[in-house]
Structures are given as structure tokens and as C-alpha cells.
């Protein structure tokens, strides 16, 4: 199978007062139809990487080396760093779409859901008539399990889980080949989270897109991903299929991440209710990582 996306030696710096190396020579391939998990703590550069793939980085962030190549299903390759202007605009969302972090708050509160969904079609499929757009939007909502009647609703009339589904519908509007999801289920409770995850797995089987799933919740990734990359301080420290990563983690950081989740049914792991405290600061961010986090937040 040929990869749909290959990232080669990608480095990204934030040119702040002190230059911060947010992503350092990352190489990754994403196979067609695969779910690739990207795990790491805040400030490790995982969101920066995602933004770089969709070319959404703004100064002071700068890609200093490497490239991202997208190989389309139709058999041509596109070097994303070469795209500019209208080509880039047409490419984005059509081939690679993204579900953003805190997606529930990224809907425009003063526009109806229908207007926000149809906006995608107006931009990318100008040949569609108004009636066709309406029908396509309705189909999209139903595909993610939201009733067609909700097209007329405003975002505040929907629950968090439903807003999240609308965001996923929006990302799927043009049937992209790659979907990047940045913490799509944080802030949702476990039951809604489970529904959304099942939805994503079902839609992937149906539509055959590949997913880059970014989160810090490693148990969640272990459940849904085919392969998992663990990121720390801009580097990918370990990349393996889910089973191997869980049963034979090689890097000490992966082991530490795994042990920081108490298991629901099994042992207590690193959790001590009556023992000694250990090293409280052991896993806190170091100075450079904190800066990356600060710059990332600023640039949003």
C-alpha cells in the first residue's frame, strides 16, 4: 500500500525572543485508510505538527526544513510546501480536512448550522445549486448521526457532543482523503466520547479516509489506532503499532506515559494512595517545552 501522506524531516521553529524548536526533524508516513495516533503532553509540538500539515501555521512559526507530500488517490503527488494562493485554498479541506481542538467552540454562534455547512460547498463546489447544497448538508448531518432538522439550529441549541458531530460533518463534507483530529473528544464526557469514537471508526470504514488522531489520552489511542507515535519535546520518540507499543514499550517516556494511567479493571499502576509521593515534578514540563506551549497558545 502506498502512503497517502509522507512527512520528511520536518522541522518547525517559533521565532520568538528565543527561538523555540517546536518540531524537530519529524518523519512520518500515513497509510491509506489508517488511523495514526499522535500522543504527547501539552507543549510537545503535536498541534504544531498538525497545523503544519494543513499549512495553517502563522508567524512566528516557521517551517525550517523538510516537506510534506500528499499522494492522491487519483495517482498524483503534491508537495504541500509548494502550494500557494488559490491552489492551496482549493486543496485544503478538499483533500485534507481538520477537526480542531475545542471544536465545540469553533462554530460561529450567530450563524445557523446550515449556513456554516453550506459555506464549505459555496467555496469548494460553486457549481452546486442552493437546493443541492441544502440536500448535501442534510445528508452530512445524518451521516454523523444528527437529525436533518437541526440544520436550522444555532450552535447554542446543540449539546457539546452534537456540536462536535457537526464539526466532524463539516470536515467530511468534501470527502477528504486525510482527516486530522486535534483532541476531538476532550471536554466531552465518557459516554459521548465513546459514541463519537464509534462514529469515527464507522465513517472510516465507510469512506476510507486516513486519520491522524492527536490526543494526550493514551488508553484512548490504544483502542482506536492502528499505529501510535509518541511525541516529546518536538521529537517522535517511539512509533509502533498499538499492540507492540502497549506490550513492549521501548522508550522510557512511553513507559512513563503508560504507567500514568491507572487501569480501570487491573492493577493500580503508579497510583499510590497510601505510599510515598515519589517525584512530583519528575514529569512536569521543562523550560523549553513551557515556552513552546506559551507560543502555541499565543499564535492561536
Amino acid at each position: 500500500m502506498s502512503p497517502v501522506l509522507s512527512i520528511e524531516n520536518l522541522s518547525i521553529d517559533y521565532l520568538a525572543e528565543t527561538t523555540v524548536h517546536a518540531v524537530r526533524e519529524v518523519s512520518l508516513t500515513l497509510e491509506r485508510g489508517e488511523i495514526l495516533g499522535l500522543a504527547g503532553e501539552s507543549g510537545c509540538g503535536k498541534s504544531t505538527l498538525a497545523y503544519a500539515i494543513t499549512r495553517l501555521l502563522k508567524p512566528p512559526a516557521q517551517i525550517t526544513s523538510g516537506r510534506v507530500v500528499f499522494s492522491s488517490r487519483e495517482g498524483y503527488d503534491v508537495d504541500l510546501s509548494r502550494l500557494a494562493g488559490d491552489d492551496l485554498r482549493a486543496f485544503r479541506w478538499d483533500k485534507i480536512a481538520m477537526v480542531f481542538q475545542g471544536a465545540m467552540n469553533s462554530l460561529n454562534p450567530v450563524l445557523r448550522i446550515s449556513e456554516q455547512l453550506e459555506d464549505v460547498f459555496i467555496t469548494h463546489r460553486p457549481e452546486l445549486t442552493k437546493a443541492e447544497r441544502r440536500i448535501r448538508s442534510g445528508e452530512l448531518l445524518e451521516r454523523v448521526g444528527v437529525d436533518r432538522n437541526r440544520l436550522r439550529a444555532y450552535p447554542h441549541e446543540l449539546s457539546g457532543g452534537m456540536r462536535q458531530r457537526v464539526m466532524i460533518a463539516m470536515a467530511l463534507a468534501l470527502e477528504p482523503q486525510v482527516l486530522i483530529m486535534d483532541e476531538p473528544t476532550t471536554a466531552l464526557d465518557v459516554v459521548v466520547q465513546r459514541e463519537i469514537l464509534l462514529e469515527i471508526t464507522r465513517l472510516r470504514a465507510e469512506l476510507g479516509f486516513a486519520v491522524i488522531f492527536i490526543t494526550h489520552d493514551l488508553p484512548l489511542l490504544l483502542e482506536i489506532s492502528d499505529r501510535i507515535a509518541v511525541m516529546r519535546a518536538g521529537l517522535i520518540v517511539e512509533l509502533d503499532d498499538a499492540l507492540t507499543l502497549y506490550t513492549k514499550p521501548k522508550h522510557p517516556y512511553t513507559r512513563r506515559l503508560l504507567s500514568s494511567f491507572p487501569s480501570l479493571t487491573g492493577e493500580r499502576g503508579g497510583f499510590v494512595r497510601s505510599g510515598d509521593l515519589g517525584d512530583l515534578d519528575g514529569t512536569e514540563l521543562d523550560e523549553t517545552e513551557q515556552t513552546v506551549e506559551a507560543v502555541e497558545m499565543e499564535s492561536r
Partner: protein
Amino acid sequence: MSVLEMREMVKEYRLREGLRTTRLRAVDNVSFELTPGRTIALVGQSGSGKSTIAKLLMQLERPTSGSILVDGEPMQYRGARAAAYRKAVQMVFQDPFGSLNPYHTIGHHLARPVTLHHPDFTREQVDERVLELLRRVRLDEDYVGRKPHELSGGQRQRVAIARALAPEPAILVADEPVSMLDVSIRLGVLNLLAALQREENLGVLYITHDLATARHFSDEIMVLYHGAVVEHGSADDVILNPQHEYTQLLAEASPAPERRLAELGH
């Protein structure tokens, strides 16, 4: 004060829809008892009434019916007994980024509750107490002069815990204290809470939707569904052998990698 009891608590909210009003029963006949040194976890989905129970305990909401008893005596909303109650029941909030004032130093955040609850303290005594609080949550003394933005999420939450401990409470209500923190520091903060609980013999109400930490951090678990307690028992019983179908649903929905990896492995 040693035992806090919530008895047959009901809280209803009036919802208005145009001219019609409906009633929403947010807390439906909930009873439990918080005793020193024990932790009760309150789990449930968003909207199940977890935070309303916390608000009722913190006197931020008045019950529709039912009562809160302190050592068998009804809780007061006014007077000296109310002041004593507010000193004895403290809360740690979910969001360490929102619960600290960016304008004030860490020292100020800790000195306020100390002076409020000990008006007779001299400035030296207050300063001494602030430093002691910082040490209790394993923060260096030089954090006194820092502002919240200079601290990481885990450090901020530890300041919030120190602030809750300042009035020397008997009961601590922790509303999702680690859900906003990075995974690798969650355990550290929970372990710290557990250690402080042991040192001070605190009764803790741990509100969460994470069943895994609820199981390992608590003695008892109460499962809340639409405001009513559908299951209440010892932590291991509720998680490993859930009786009510809603508890089973919650347990099913929680990420449990072993399940899928077992499928992958064979």
C-alpha cells in the same frame, strides 16, 4: 466537626420556556455521609447533577427539600455556626487556569483565606502559615512572590489545593481536580491529595467522570444518573461488578485498551 451528612436531598430548578415553566429535578433524593479519612467518589455524565451536589454542600445553592447535617445538627446559612461550617468545608475547582487571579501573587492567594479565618494572626504568623502551606503541597517557598502565569497547570492546581487547606477544613470537595491537567501529572496531584487526606484526616468528596481514578482514589463510589444515585457501594464492587445498567454503560464507555489489544493479539 467530623461527620457531614446529606439526607434526602432534592434540588429543583425552574426552567422557563416562553410563558410556560417546567421543573427540572437536578438532584433527586440523594443521601450520603462523609466521614473523616474516607473518600467518596461521585461519578456520572455531564448534567447528571454532580456539580449541583457540590454547590449545595458549598452553600452556593439552597435545597428544595432535604437537609445537610453536621454531626447530626442541621447546617446553618447564617451566624457563627454558618461561619464555622464554611471554614470546615472547602473546595478545589476543576480549572486551575481560571480559579487563580492572574493579578495576584501566589502568596496573596494563600494569605487571604488565612487572614479571613484567623483575624487574630499577626503578619508574621500569616506569612509563616503561607510558607507552611506551600511546603505541604511540595512547592518551593520562593513561589510566594510568583504570579499564576509563571506556574504550570499541575503547580497551579497544587496552589488551589493549598488554598483550600488554608482554613484547616475537615471536608474537601474536589470537583474534577485533575481533568484539566496533563496526564503524566494527574497521578502526582491525586497522590498528593491522598497524602494530605491522610495527614489531616480529611473527608473527601471526589467528583469525576473518570471511573479509573475514581476506583483507585476512593473508598466508595456513588453513580449518579439524572440526579438520582443508581448505585452506591465500595469502589471495587461498583467498578468490577456493576449492577445497574447505567454503571455498566459507563464502564463500557471508559477507555480500556486491554479489551481491544486482547482482540488484536489473538
